[in-house]
């Protein structure tokens, strides 16, 4: 996690292990506090949301990207620029619907679960990385794109791949006089 060279700051690399352990501790603590998997998932999503609404401006300020002109461009931007910048991985993107508003990000590698093999039996419905869904949802909302983001498949649950589904909810309206 270092800053791009354009920034007049020292490169502060933080250990990935510390980040992964911190995330794991967070999930473990939530599991202690909530009995139901749905509650833990919802809490992770909310936390992710409050990260996403702030992270988006960091992303825009650092990457200086142009406005995306379509949902497809947006999905590509998330996978190829944002995931690369923050997690060092590049999921592949596929479009799931003819209407052009449902996309999937297939994560080949996911640093958050490097040290997690599978979920315990009593936590079968836990979406371990649900924080990521909240982050994406919050970030999109701040650029005036309402979306539903969730894990469609999860290797931790025994599925073949880990797949995040993004469904854009409205046609991009004229954004000239927002905020």
């Amino acid at each position, binding site marked *: 996690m270092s800053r791009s060279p354009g920034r007049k700051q020292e490169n502060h690399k933080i250990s990935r292990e510390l980040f992964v352990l911190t995330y794991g501790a967070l999930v473990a603590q939530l599991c202690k506090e909530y009995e139901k998997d749905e509650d833990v998932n919802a809490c992770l999503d909310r936390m992710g949301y409050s990260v996403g609404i*702030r992270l988006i401006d960091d992303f825009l300020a650092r990457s200086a990207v142009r406005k995306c002109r379509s949902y497809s461009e947006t999905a590509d931007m998330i996978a190829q620029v944002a995931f690369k910048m923050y997690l060092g991985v590049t999921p592949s993107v596929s479009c799931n619907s003819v209407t052009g508003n449902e996309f999937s990000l297939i994560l080949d590698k996911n640093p958050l679960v490097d040290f997690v093999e599978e979920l315990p039996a009593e936590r079968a419905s836990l979406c371990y990385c649900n924080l990521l869904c909240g982050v994406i949802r919050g970030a999109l909302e701040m650029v005036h794109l309402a979306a539903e983001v969730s894990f469609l498949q999860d290797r931790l649950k025994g599925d073949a791949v880990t797949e995040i589904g993004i469904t854009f909810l409205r046609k991009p309206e004229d954004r000239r*006089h927002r905020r």
Partner: protein
Amino acid sequence: GRRAVPAVGHAVLAINGAEVNGRFTADGKDVLEFLGNPANYPVSIRFGRHRLSSNEKLMLASMFHSLFAIGSQLSPEVGSSGIEMLETDTFKLHCFQTLTGIKFMVLADPRQTGIDALLRKIYEIYSDFALKNPFYSLEMPIRCELFDQNLKLALEVAEKAGPFGPGS
């Protein structure tokens, strides 16, 4: 004095070097009384514009926010942005709107260059020292020490880089 008549909109800012707050000096003297007593002459009076209060700034910013939106609607070009620059004899107002809808505005000398880079730098400073401060609530006035410090630094750098030295 240097001018025969104070300029429109100017008020008394200081008398004999001591700052004035409304009608009274710092040590509680009534300004008009003091000025009315010939025993106190000669007296040096500093006139100038009052600094805007936070509320006044908020009011002016929201007015500009509306003008910005009207600007983009009035434009005959489709997909036009809002007002990016407003130029007058004495200053230029530069406005940068992020994709998240936040507007950064800089008032500068009309001859000052490098404002675009400054605006983007301020965006970075905002995303670092305001947004990454967990105790800062979105949409509220920014009262973060680090933000102020870094902003001041960025302004100093921009001033030096312009065609005129500091103080322009």
